[in-house]
């Protein structure tokens, strides 16, 4: 088992290198520069020219890349042009917010979707199945940001049940109060994300359950006299979980990408909101750092998927 994980981990190294080059070049290819907009419009072009030169923006790309990588290994991702503070500190403060939100959303999503999927598959074609299917399709059809906007309007402004901005209330003191306040702030975006993000898991699980329900080994289990609930628990559920497990890792990355919408609508200070802001200000250092982090999180997501898969299905461990 550890061998599988180690090998899978080694494969990641070239992936990360290629990713970092791509990220760096794409950021360089973006139009505009970090000074034109933010410095006094009357500033001398020669002055800007000088600033770009001392910041190394005229060097050949490989040299810039190399400098960037060396700094990277020193934990230095450069200074944000916009905020004038180290990118690591800028992101570090927000990464936790985003991760909490993503984790919370994911747990809720699975908590809703797994029972729904199994239930729909078990009662295939009956009324509960139809209701669950219609529900998932309807939620799938509505764009996520529309749901967020409607959700924040109804529950945040009209009913006033949930806070509409920020990640913590300003007067939170003490450990318990802080934690409660944080939780209160991620509750609405988390719930919305989970309630409207079940379609993949439910549909996959449902069709897998229907498949394995009719398979020969389930018939064998019935002939052994295994009670129906144990057949669902030990034979059908475990085998149907495989494709779900396969994209559990990816769904983390999906949520991180989704966080761009959520955080913008909820003004939630996380990486997504920072990303959107830094793009509009052409804050290269922040953009490259964030894209790199998102990319590495994607790779970790697939790594997680593979590890989960090899736990669930012993046949596919790398020999």
């Amino acid at each position: 088992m550890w061998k599988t994980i180690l090998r899978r981990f080694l494969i990641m190294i070239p992936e990360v290198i290629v990713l970092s080059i791509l990220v760096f070049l794409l950021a360089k290819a973006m139009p505009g520069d970090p000074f034109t907009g933010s410095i006094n419009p009357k500033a001398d072009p020669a002055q800007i020219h000088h600033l770009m030169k001392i910041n190394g923006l005229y060097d050949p790309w490989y040299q810039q890349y190399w400098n960037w990588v060396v700094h990277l290994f020193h934990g230095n991702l450069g200074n944000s042009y916009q905020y004038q503070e180290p990118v690591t500190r800028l992101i570090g403060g927000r990464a936790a917010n985003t991760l909490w939100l993503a984790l919370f959303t994911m747990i809720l999503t699975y908590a809703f979707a797994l029972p729904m999927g199994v239930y729909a598959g078990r009662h295939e074609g009956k009324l509960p199945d139809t209701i669950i299917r219609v529900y998932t399709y309807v939620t799938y059809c509505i764009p996520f940001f529309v749901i967020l906007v409607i959700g924040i309007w109804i529950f945040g402004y009209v009913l006033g049940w949930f806070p509409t901005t920020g990640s913590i209330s300003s007067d939170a003191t003490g450990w318990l109060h802080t934690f409660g306040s944080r939780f209160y702030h991620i509750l609405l975006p988390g719930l919305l994300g989970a309630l409207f993000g079940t379609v993949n898991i439910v549909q996959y699980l449902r069709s897998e359950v229907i498949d394995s329900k009719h398979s020969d080994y389930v018939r064998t289990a019935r002939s052994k006299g295994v009670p129906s609930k144990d057949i669902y628990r030990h034979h059908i559920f475990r085998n149907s979980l495989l494709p779900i497990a396969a994209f559990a890792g990816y769904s983390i990355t999906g949520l991180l990408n989704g966080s761009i919408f959520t955080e913008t609508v909820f003004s939630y200070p996380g990486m997504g909101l920072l990303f959107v802001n830094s793009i509009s200000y052409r804050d290269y250092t922040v953009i490259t750092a964030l894209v790199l982090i998102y990319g590495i999180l994607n790779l970790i997501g697939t790594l997680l998927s593979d590890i989960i898969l090899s736990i669930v299905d012993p046949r596919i461990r790398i020999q």
Partner: protein
Amino acid sequence: MSLIEIKDLKVHYPIRSGFWNRITDSVRAVDGVSFNIEAGETYGLVGESGSGKSTTGKSVVGLEKVTSGSIMYKGLDITKAENRRKLDYNHDVQMIFQDSLSSLNPRKRIEDIIAEPLRNFEHLSKDDEKLRVLQLLNIVGLDADALYKYPHQFSGGQRQRIGVARAVATNPKLIIADEPVSALDLSVQAQVLNFMKKIQREFGISYLFISHDLGVVRHMCNNIAIMNRGRLVEIGTRDDIYNHPLHIYTKRLLAAIPETDVNSREAHRASRLAVEQVYQDQQSKYYDDNGAAYPLVQVTPTHAVALPQTIAQQLASQEGEVQA
């Protein structure tokens, strides 16, 4: 008293059609089948594919929803789920399937596969359970290292023996063997069949042996029922069926057994064609107007055939004359 008594068993599947998917007709997979299985015997159920023999077998294990009729075991009708529960019915009745690979859960180890019926019905300690599984593996001639392997790591014959081990795990009284060897090659067939016979001798198990291979059935079974189009066409002992077949369907099946004697090949071919000719000419005599078999009539204490009384008597006396 018989171990199990099947009486007028019917399994019909609805055919739905039209816009509203109303039930317009039904497929009569099993249409009024009655027979008894005695303790310790091997009862053969023979028929072409689609004749309803597997459906009958599945009904006896309780896998199929029965339309009407009864299956009596220990004085209770086990077509009802609550009676099956009351009797721990699947403790006593197990099934072996044809496809040994797909009928084993690919993600479970052999240990879990064989131990699962034990876990259902007998609450053994971990060590006892493992000991029991090892004994079972030993009975079917597999090594202890099989415990931690997965089904796909075995050959077809080994897998089918695992299926046998799994079926005998709870010391059942009756095992339904649904074409247990038809997916195996001949040498392995013999191996598995001999294991089944050995286990029968040791534990006094009854088999309901479902097959279309008359050679195998002759090797295994004491009593045989021939099934055609969801009904039984002939019931009898091995001798009755193989030496004094009365129904044309039985005769056709027997004529289809390949002959190994090269010299009599022509004669065999001629007799086969003769039987086929009779079948083509006299369909109406052997089947009723709807193409279904007649109800069974008894011709000797052990032998029954699905024909009108008069024709049955006539054929039986002919058969008797030939014998004399």
